[in-house]
């Protein structure tokens, strides 16, 4: 591996609004061609962070380097980056073509060259060429997404930023666009920095994910690492429904406080356990009797809400004879200690 400078390097990047710190000394290097996603709940500072990266806002402290060059004080219109906005921010008084050509027009590219490039970009985002003269106001939701993407690509940016562009799109279309975006990333080889509140969305597309909380990165890792080894209950909570079991020290060793069972080899204050790791039957490491309090069909799997002692757990079971449990029934469940991710907070 040659020593390329990182595509984008953040050092102690901070943004305060009055007494509130929205982005709190964030430092990270993002590699060339990486698909890097920042996930966080609303108010976590992720939008402020991406605005700092794009140059739409100025950091209170810290610095920002693009391929080794200091761009901290460079305004957005001079940065070789482009953003796809949450609202898309398409120019509604203009056509699809004029939107895509905007950055080129600002650079003074002659009209014929602009047009040729715009048509090329339309193909790249899978829109028919006859969309070129249409007013953007006549485009559907998905088409507007593609126009916004083509417009950002039209400035030939070194880095593309995405500020939750898919948040207002319905589920099925979102799934399609996620895959297209991932393919586009692979084809263009550009660095993508993506903001979302959905870890699910991040998992599908990203090379690396940062979980953001209160202006800081709580955990940075590959999707697999985040999924298997969350560092905190907060990260674990982002993965949707998950069992978090408190562990306490009693007598000789650790016990699951609510289950009242021994927790040999416990390595943290809480055990994070995915619902599919809780299985009917007693063949795994830790077994317990539980009452089924709710039964929900999820399609290929069935979810059971369980009560065992003071603990409430969720189990998900693949369709089959094992999933044949009814509400009120008491059955044996178990899980493997190896499936547990240990967290301290």
């Amino acid at each position: 591996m040659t020593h390329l400078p990182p595509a984008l390097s953040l050092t102690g990047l901070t943004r305060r609004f009055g007494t509130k710190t929205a982005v709190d000394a964030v430092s990270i290097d993002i590699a060339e061609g990486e698909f890097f996603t920042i996930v966080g709940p609303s108010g976590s500072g992720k939008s402020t962070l991406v605005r700092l990266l794009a140059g739409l806002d100025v950091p209170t402290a810290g610095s920002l380097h693009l391929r080794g060059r200091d761009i901290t004080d460079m305004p957005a219109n001079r940065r070789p980056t482009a953003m796809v906005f949450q609202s898309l921010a398409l120019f509604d008084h203009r056509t699809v073509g004029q939107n895509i050509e905007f950055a080129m027009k600002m650079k003074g590219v002659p009209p014929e060259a602009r047009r040729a490039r715009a048509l090329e970009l339309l193909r790249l985002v899978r829109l028919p060429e006859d969309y070129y003269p249409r007013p953007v106001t006549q485009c559907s939701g998905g088409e507007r997404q593609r126009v916004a993407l083509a417009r950002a690509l039209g400035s030939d940016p070194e880095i593309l930023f995405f500020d939750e562009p898919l948040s207002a799109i319905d589920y099925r279309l979102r799934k399609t666009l996620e895959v297209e975006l991932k393919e586009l990333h692979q084809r263009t080889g550009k660095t993508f920095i993506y903001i979302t509140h959905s870890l699910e969305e991040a998992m599908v597309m990203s090379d690396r994910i940062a979980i953001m909380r209160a202006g800081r990165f709580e955990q940075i890792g590959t999707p697999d690492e985040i999924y298997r080894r969350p560092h905190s209950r907060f990260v674990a909570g982002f993965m949707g429904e998950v069992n978090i079991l408190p562990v306490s020290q009693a007598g000789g060793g650790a016990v699951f406080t609510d289950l009242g069972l021994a927790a040999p080899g416990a390595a943290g204050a809480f055990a994070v356990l995915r619902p599919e790791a809780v299985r009917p039957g007693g063949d795994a490491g830790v077994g317990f009797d539980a009452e089924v309090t709710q039964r929900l069909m999820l399609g290929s799997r069935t979810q059971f809400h369980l009560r065992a002692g003071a603990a409430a757990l969720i189990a998900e079971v693949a369709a089959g004879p094992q999933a044949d449990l009814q509400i009120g029934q008491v059955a044996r469940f178990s899980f493997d200690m190896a499936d547990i991710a240990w967290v301290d907070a």
Partner: protein
Amino acid sequence: MRGGRHILWLKVLWVGTVVTALYLPIVSVVLASLANTRYMRFPHKVWTLDAYRAAAADYTTVTLHVISLQIAVCVVLLSVTLGTIGAMAYARHDWRGRGLFQKILVLPIFFPQPVLGLALLLSMSALGIAPSWKTAVVAHAVWIVPIVTLVISIRLFGYDVAQEEAAFDLGASRWQVAREVTLPALWPGIFSGALFAFLLSWSNLPLSVYTSGADTPLPLWLFSRTATNYSPLVPAIAVIGTCVSGLIVVMLLLMRRLLAGKNQPV
């Protein structure tokens, strides 16, 4: 629903009556202008366009229109400029004091116009400023600028400010952002604002009464001549004045269409 048809007819009748009532006086003015006697006895014995010929020959007609026009043009320019800038503060930016600004802005609209005119007259006289068409421009502006600001603000509220950031992010300079994004997006609002300003100024009576001094705009002349010295010339000039304003509006609309056509790609 039973009786639905009858209700519909009642509704049509009601709306028809309202519209008719609104237009009867206007039609009456047109009818009155077609007489040739000083004392009107309708139906006229002789239907004639004499009054229009007299109006066309009378230099007063031109003077009245010129004064009204110069007031209206100044008011349009003033209110569009100030209104666009003011709308930025009203609807585009969130700033400390915006709430207060929004409330203060509407006060001249909710104010009796003749009283405003009188107050302006009194203070100008106190300061030794002689009322003329220029002071009428000021009086009109105090009332019309806030209205135009609201009209442009309506447009601005429906406008995604992120468009400006997107343009900036795509390499546009601040000036280019204004020229390529902000102004074109606001243009429909600015244009409607200009039309409003023109029509409101052209037809205004209560503000002009006390502030225009020796320069008499159309509505004021009509007001004084209906009371004294009536002749069919009065309704004729009323009709001409209204048609002229209509023509100017149509011309502006056509111009806008032509300009829009040029900017739109084929």
